[in-house]
């Protein structure tokens, strides 16, 4: 068996994936297996009793949003009752930032990988502040969600309807040239998104005030494009998954309690261990004591070769990695050591347009003792408070070692 060759195949498939943002639709209409009693969440599988604060808060918010509960007490009781199923977004072709909770009637972005004929999904981004993805479920939060569902989502869908869709791979590549790394910094990409949507929204048959509201919302949110980027990365990594004999990581995800990975050549098995608290910078009034362990599917960006792996191209946020551009450069150079390819489409001007490090190889991670670096937002440990900072996190080494041993056992290399 040629592991290197299998890994090249997995990386090629990831890079050849071309996800087009096609539209916005209710989750229950487009996500396979979605129903009214199912809630999707970020990270590896987890039961209610082990969920962290932010994830519980988001679950409560989603149940109220769906009309299945009237307040947090009844929502918690319902969630604990066993009548609601919880499954990872990753089991349904989706990826969601932070808590990543998607319920049946929530509007989701629909992407189509035209190379591999696969659909992937993500929810709509609510912006900063008190938001569901950080476990907030106040009336204000739910009101915004309803507006997004009823006004924003359909407007974006209508804007996309007359087009071939937005080529997410090309958009990410362009944003990388504009100082985004695609995970913690999506300012440029979000403006590119706005540029695409603005004329189409302007031409729509909607009240002027609604158009203004929509464009204002998208333009004000430097994370507008994060969710489509994550769904695009999900399409790419899904394309690289399931290559026999490949040691490339195709999922890195956290649910606020556990960090989980999946490996291309190891089927749908998760390898999990307790998630760490990110090391980072905190918003005014918050410290590490307020932080929840790492949460969210957004590490799908690093899995696809951007985010923390593309730090060299995002000098504006070098503070996360030590403060100097050289540190950012070294962050990317370090990731070349544990990856199998340099991206053909995503490249970085500061590294002389070298392709981003793509395709994490569990062999290299274990051999060198170097885990992937993930740029991430930091959630407050209590539901409803929101984001308290941003920083850097690394997955526990144990899950890579466990995956390596499992790989050796599956492919007869254990002894």
């Amino acid at each position, binding site marked *: 068996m040629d592991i290197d060759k299998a890994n090249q195949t997995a990386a090629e498939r990831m890079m050849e994936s071309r996800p087009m943002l096609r539209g916005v639709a209710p989750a229950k209409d487009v996500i396979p297996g979605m129903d009214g009693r199912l809630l999707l969440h970020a990270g590896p599988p987890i039961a209610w009793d082990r969920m962290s604060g932010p994830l519980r808060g988001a679950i409560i918010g989603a149940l109220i949003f769906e009309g299945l509960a009237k307040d947090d007490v009844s929502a918690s009781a319902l969630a604990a009752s066993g009548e609601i199923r919880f499954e990872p977004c990753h089991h349904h072709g989706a990826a969601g930032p932070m808590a990543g909770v998607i319920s049946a009637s929530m509007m989701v972005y629909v992407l189509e990988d035209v190379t591999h004929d696969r659909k992937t999904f993500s929810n709509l981004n609510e912006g900063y502040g008190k938001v569901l993805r950080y476990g907030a479920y106040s009336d204000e939060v739910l009101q915004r969600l309803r507006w997004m569902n009823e006004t924003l989502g359909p407007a974006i869908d209508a804007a996309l309807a007359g087009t071939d869709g937005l080529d997410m791979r090309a958009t990410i590549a362009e944003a990388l040239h504009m100082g985004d790394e695609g995970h913690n910094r999506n300012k440029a990409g979000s403006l590119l998104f706005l540029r695409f949507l603005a004329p189409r929204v302007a031409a729509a048959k909607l009240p002027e005030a609604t158009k203004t509201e929509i464009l204002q919302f998208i333009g004000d949110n430097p994370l507008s494009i994060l969710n489509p980027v994550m769904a695009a990365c999900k399409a790419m990594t899904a394309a690289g998954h399931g290559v026999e004999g490949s040691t490339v990581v195709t999922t890195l995800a956290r649910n606020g309690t556990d960090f989980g990975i999946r490996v291309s050549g190891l089927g749908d098995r998760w390898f999990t261990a307790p998630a760490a608290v990110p090391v980072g*910078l905190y918003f*005014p009034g918050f410290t590490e004591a307020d932080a929840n362990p790492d949460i969210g599917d957004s590490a799908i960006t690093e899995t696809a070769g951007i985010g923390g792996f593309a730090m060299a191209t995002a000098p504006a946020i070098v*503070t996360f990695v030590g403060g100097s551009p*050289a540190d950012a450069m070294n962050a990317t150079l370090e990731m070349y050591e544990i990856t199998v390819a340099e991206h053909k489409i995503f490249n970085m001007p500061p590294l002389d347009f070298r392709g981003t490090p793509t395709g994490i190889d569990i*062999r290299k991670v*274990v*051999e060198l003792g170097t885990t992937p670096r993930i740029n991430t937002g930091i959630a407050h440990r209590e539901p409803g408070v929101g984001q308290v900072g941003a920083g850097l996190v690394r997955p526990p080494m144990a899950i890579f070692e466990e995956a390596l041993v499992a790989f050796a056992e599956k492919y007869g290399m254990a002894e």
Partner: protein
Amino acid sequence: MSVTLSQVRKGAYYDSVVLMQLQRALLALPGISDAGAVMATPVNLELLEASELRPGEQPGPDDLLIVVRADDQEAAQNALAQVDELLSRRRTAPQGTFRPKSLEAAVRQLPDAAWVLVSVPGRFAAGVAQEALRLGKNVFLYSDNVSVQDEVDLKRRAADLGRLIMGPDCGTAIIGGVGFGFANRVRRGPIGLVGASGTGLQAVTSSIDTLGSGISQAIGTGGRDLHTEIAAGTTLQAIDLLRRDPDTRVIVIVSKPPSPEVVGPVVAAAMATGKPTVVNLIGLPAGGHVRNLHFAATLEDAAALAVRLSEDPPTLEPAQVASGGRRFLRGLFSGGTLAYETVLRLQYVLQPLFSNVAIHPWQALTDPLRSQAHTVLDLGADTFTVGRLHPMMDNDLRVRRLRQEAEDPETSVILLDLVLGEGAHPDPASELAPAIRQAGGHGIQTVVAVIGTESDPQTLAEQVATLERSGATVKIGLEAALETVVAALPLEARSIPVEVPLSVLDETPATINVGLEGFAESLAAQNAHVVHVDWRPPAGGDERLMGILARMKGTQG
């Protein structure tokens, strides 16, 4: 009672990470209990409100808002006064170049590197060297405690790939003017060396420098390269490299006592270079020279001889190259000691060589009546003289064997001795002449070593004249005859399966250093491009995981 002070800067945009950093710096100042530095967006103002830092004034979203809470007014004012300095403070982290942890990353950083220096602990060394080969690199393997089997595997793979493994346990080398490991600083010059590489190479290179000459290359092979198992894998490649290296005009080969069966191929390769070559293999009979080979007794002799040869190069007839056909010597001696001396002198030069007076077991002739490859026969041995006179008196046996060899299509040169004196045959030359003439008819050259004096009853001059008329080349004494024989024999066509590209010897090579950091510093001091690998034991030294990784790489099991 704490004091909260704020400052607004209209339209001053800063990225949030810069502001978070500012905030952290403010918090670190004396007397500051809390701080906030934000663009005054509604969301941020709310955040400040939550920590009771929101000021009374109402800045806009494009404004920078800085708030500090301090123990007293002075501390708060002092903190706000430092904002500009804190904002403009640059980290003084050195623009340090990236230090890769893996060889692979180092190669990507310095793709032109031809050499990888490996000085990690022995149990990891073979793995690193294998990785270097996989990446197409040549290896200077300083590490010791590498198993023989690992060395065999490494050198076989290197031979297949046309790559060089200097080592293991290779302490020194000089490549393209750059010293690896413990090299002495010696001037450049025309003399190229191959050696086990330790003090031997250092002694010879230093002597050469002292004598005013210099070094083109000094290639280390590792202490076991001339052992039977390793079979001179690196030495043969190194000799072939020096053959092709235009900067090398004289070659020196130095080694600790070699395994006897390995010497032959080494000497043959040295002969094939056609360049004056000084051979100093400890334990090998020293002195004299055959063709381009000069045997030296000591390391200093080797240096002196090399310098002399480089200053006054002897002219060498280019050797013919044989592949099949007439290429072997057949020595038919009447004198046992002369036969033995011939085996002793030629055993490493002519390979394979068989004899009924074998020095090593593998030289024993299967059937004394039939020659194989190079054969040296003592026809005075008991097996031949049963029931007949000694060949010094009766030429019949030699003449018959001479005719037999003349009819052998593989015979190239026949060597005879002709021992004159009291009691010997009265005119041996005349008896041998017809058979010599017959051999000459087949294109076989006969060389005769005559032992005798002008006073001998057979008359030396007449014997010589008779032999020369038959077409033989006649030399007085064995030494001169042997030299003629070696010069007359065609060289065996020899080739390295895959040539090591000459570019490995390029001037000031780029290198990757794995292990002792001092080696990297030394290379940098010699102006060589070097990337140092921040090496650690794979998988933190976990044996089980290391085993799995090795199996997954296909380098083990």
